[in-house]
């Protein structure tokens, strides 16, 4: 095991490692406070997300998200797992620098703020379902005052007597 887990901390928190890799990672964090803290942080974040109720996603948004995935050709879940496993068997990585950690936390912070701003930008106000039947009657009342010239026969009778 290398001096630090690096990106494997997330895989450990996500329970995506095989038995051997998991044992080695756990052995490492028993003696490495930095990696233990990072794995704990990952677990807390995962628990936080897991405990949230599923947000209501509109069909339109879901469609666009799926389109993004198709267009981008992003890696599937097994691809990610394979890449992480490959990293486990690769030569030991260098210890994470302060700059690397700062970048990671900065990215997380930016993502969090982005999510907060996105949530806060949703349209506000009462949900409106127009009472169209009443509207049609109001419209008929507007236009159906006079005799046949003004088409009360068409607009009033046909619209009102349903």
């Amino acid at each position, binding site marked *: 095991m290398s001096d630090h887990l690096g990106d494997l901390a997330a895989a450990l928190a996500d329970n995506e490692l095989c038995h051997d890799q998991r044992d080695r990672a756990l052995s490492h964090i028993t003696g490495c406070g930095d990696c233990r803290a990072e794995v704990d942080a990952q677990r807390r974040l995962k628990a*936080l997300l897991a405990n*949230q*109720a599923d947000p209501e996603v*509109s069909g339109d948004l879901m469609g666009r998200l799926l389109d993004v995935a198709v267009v981008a050709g992003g890696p599937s879940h097994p691809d990610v797992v394979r890449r992480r496993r490959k990293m486990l068997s690769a030569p030991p990585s260098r210890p994470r620098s302060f700059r690397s950690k700062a970048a990671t936390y900065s990215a997380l912070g930016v993502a969090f*703020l982005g*999510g*907060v*701003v*996105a*949530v*806060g*930008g*949703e*349209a*506000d*106000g*009462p*949900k*409106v*379902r*127009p009472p*169209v039947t*009443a*509207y*049609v*009657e*109001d*419209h*008929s*009342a*507007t*236009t*159906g*005052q*006079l*005799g*046949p*010239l*003004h*088409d*009360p*026969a*068409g*607009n*009033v*009778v*046909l*619209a*009102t*007597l*349903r």
Partner: protein
Amino acid sequence: MRRGPLLLATGGAVVLLHASAGAVPAQQAGHASREDALALLADAARAVRELTYSGTQMVSFWSESGSSSALIDVNHVRGQGLLLRVAPTPQNPGGAVYDDESGDVPQVVGIGGLDLLAAHYDVGVEGDGEVAGRAAYVVVVRRPGATANVSARFWIDRRTSLPLRREVLDDEGRTLRESAFIDVEVGEGDVPPSVRKVATTMPLMRGAPADVAALRAAGWEVPDRVGNGLELLDVRVDGTGDETTLHMTYSDGLATVSLFEQKGVLDTKNLDGWRRDEVAGERVWVQDAFPRRVVWAGRGSVFTVVADCPQATIEDLVRTLPHGTPGPGMTTRLGNGLARVGSWLNPFA
């Protein structure tokens, strides 16, 4: 509540005018002036109210989604009211409507009907006609311009000025609405009290006339004009708080549009009976029915249009009104978002 402000409904345009006192100009077809044609229409509007008549009228509508027709027994008694009875058909269950004509009509709006028609259209007497065995003048309404198609035709009884037939067409010359007496008797008619009792009362407009300036100051969208020359004629407010609804009436003298506005977000998940569509490049929801119905959200409001007019008029109207909902500023969004995330994390929220 009051009676509707417009005496010009779709295609009617002629409305409650106190113009020329009854004398129908004895012009020869094709030689009558614009003023003569307008006087004929004014006389026709007066005749509808002041004469006693009865007969059977055929009414038809056409649209992209289909057509609808009805035979209607018309019975008008001067000083009493108007009874309309519709025979049941597969498209319509039938029924009866009675209007005692006691409704209050804002004068400025009533007069505005013919003024609008004169402002937006060329009018002339073009040819003679005959409807239900009666000789008639044919008044033709066109958009300004030598090559414009006919927008409407009215057949006015030469002897009594009663309107006998009318057609309203779209810009391509296709008929949108048509109504005509199949038979008519002038000077006769009666509406027995027993019939009046069972008839439905003519619908009344809801809401109270509103102060346009105050509405605009409060953030409501109340344009003076929408679409291609539709002018604001009437604004009413109904309900209070979140239930407040504005009903704005627009017309160009021939087409009439009702624009309803409510504050809030369109509940697109519960729009049963509506289908998503694109009109004038904008995302809207429509109902395939007559009158036409279109709804969409824009700038914090939900707009619903109910209109008896060509599709092109609807497109012009939709194009000139707000669309989309711009989000709040960055600071507000951040505050809203933190509050929302906080509510997720608070188990007591």
